């Protein structure tokens, strides 16, 4: 790791103000950031520890929803009684990710900010527009089996790695943040993650110094919640394809997808196709897909995973 200084923030406002300075980064669970710092992909000169700011509570909101503190650990969020009962797709997505040890450290805010697992992003000898803007993309004509087929650009085909964020996208979560000037705002999850376009190194809507303080869920949807993750190993592997779904009693359902998008993927057209069945949902969701020869299989895998979910729901 490159040298850095370390401090513990005393308040949310102080943390955001300090973080706006050059080279500063927040550290929460650290499970992704420290990994990347060891590889010198991330080289902050100052770390601000935000683990002691009281952002670790799960509380009901006046609107009948749930406010999840940014420092709530993945283990605690998945095990929370209200989440299990009313937002089971979120519990299921969290439990499908990482390992028990990592979930004990990884946080709600940090999970939203975790970076891609594209092998070219991780290999510092390779070109990568996300890691080093303007250096090119090694993945497009390289090993692309695990990478995205939706929302990609000529500059980047990296996939978004999170399971949790797919469930949050499905549930229409809001990301609450405080800025360097102390101002607070809420960002709809649909607008939080950005597509790569020409600037794949800019991954989210946060401004310099802005700190995620909580994630707010609207009131429960009811229905049947499912999360299906397809991967190379039965456990502790990133998704090739994942599907989060809530099947409503009225036939209205919604779907979000992981492993196939440059960000957690959801479209109105796929949700609207729900009554027509799995094949129609797959066709709508995959509209505009730009697969490579190596990851074209993800289209069929998405359709099959949806078909499997429909059967599970019917059972």
């Amino acid at each position, binding site marked *: 790791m490159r040298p850095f200084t*370390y401090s513990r923030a005393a308040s949310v406002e102080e943390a955001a103000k300090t973080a706006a300075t050059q080279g500063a980064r927040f550290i929460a669970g650290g499970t992704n950031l420290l990994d990347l710092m060891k590889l010198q992909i991330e080289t902050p000169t100052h770390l601000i520890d935000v683990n002691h700011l009281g952002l670790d509570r799960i509380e009901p909101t006046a609107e009948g929803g749930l406010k999840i503190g940014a420092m709530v650990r993945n283990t605690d969020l998945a095990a929370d009684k209200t989440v299990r009962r009313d937002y089971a797709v979120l519990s299921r997505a969290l*439990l499908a990710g990482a390992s028990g040890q990592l979930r004990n450290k990884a946080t709600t805010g940090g999970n939203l900010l975790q970076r891609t697992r594209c092998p070219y992003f991780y290999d510092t000898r390779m070109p990568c527009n996300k890691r080093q803007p303007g250096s090119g993309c090694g993945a497009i004509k390289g090993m692309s089996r695990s990478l995205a087929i939706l929302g990609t650009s000529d500059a980047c085909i990296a996939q978004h790695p999170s399971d949790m964020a797919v469930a949050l996208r499905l549930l229409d979560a809001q990301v609450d943040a405080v800025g360097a000037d102390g101002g607070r705002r809420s960002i709809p999850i649909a607008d939080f993650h950005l597509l790569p376009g020409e600037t794949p190194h800019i991954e989210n809507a946060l401004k310099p110094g802005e700190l995620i303080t909580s994630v707010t869920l609207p009131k429960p949807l009811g229905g049947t919640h499912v999360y299906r993750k397809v991967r190379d190993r039965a456990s502790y592997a990133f998704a090739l394809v994942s599907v989060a779904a809530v099947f409503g009693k009225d036939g209205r359902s919604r779907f979000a997808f992981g492993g196939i998008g440059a960000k957690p993927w959801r479209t109105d057209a796929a949700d609207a196709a729900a009554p027509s069945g799995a094949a129609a949902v797959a066709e709508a969701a995959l509209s505009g897909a730009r697969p490579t020869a190596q990851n074209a299989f993800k289209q069929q895998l998405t359709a099959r995973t949806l078909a499997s979910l429909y059967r599970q729901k019917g059972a």
Partner: protein
Amino acid sequence: MPEPLSRRGLLQGSAAAAVAIPVLGEAQAAAPGRPGRQKEQARMNAVGLTVNGREVHLQLDPRTTLLDALREHLHLTGTKKGCDHGQCGACTVIVEGRRINSCLTLAVMHEGDHVTTIEGLGTPEKLHPMQRAFITHDGYQCGYCTPGQICSAVAVLEEIEAGIPSHATEDLDRVAFSDSEVRERMSGNICRCAAYPNIVAAIREVAGEDKA
């Protein structure tokens, strides 16, 4: 009679020699005309931990992971460094009652925390039931991943007891011991020798689920 040479003794000796270097560095830092050294000195952070029931106070470069603090500074070499990237689980320790990868956390982030390593679970004279079960069921070959496996396994049984669900849990509200629960929950601990069936057997015995 000279002390017999042991790997652990040798490791501790060389670790002691290694910590002597920063002490020299401190003396040099006081000398004028060495701004680089002064800067390095300024970066050291004080951290206090309780490790296996013992309070310890360290001066650490903030880059020091909890794993390196345990091994290189406290000479608790039971905890192993495998991949150093959170993929293998060999570095698993229990912090504030929860198992974590000690390689993916900074020691300075753990001020005041209680840490339990394999040395704190049991001793050769008084083994922890999980250590004894790993021996009984031959839950290892080379043994390198074993301290992490055992720390993880002890915490896994507590997680099941506490009703924390896993990916293998069918009904999120009904968490109960099963072999598939153990396999899923232990997936963050890799065993290159593939002693997995025996590891599951050892954990099953400690859980009191042995149907022998």
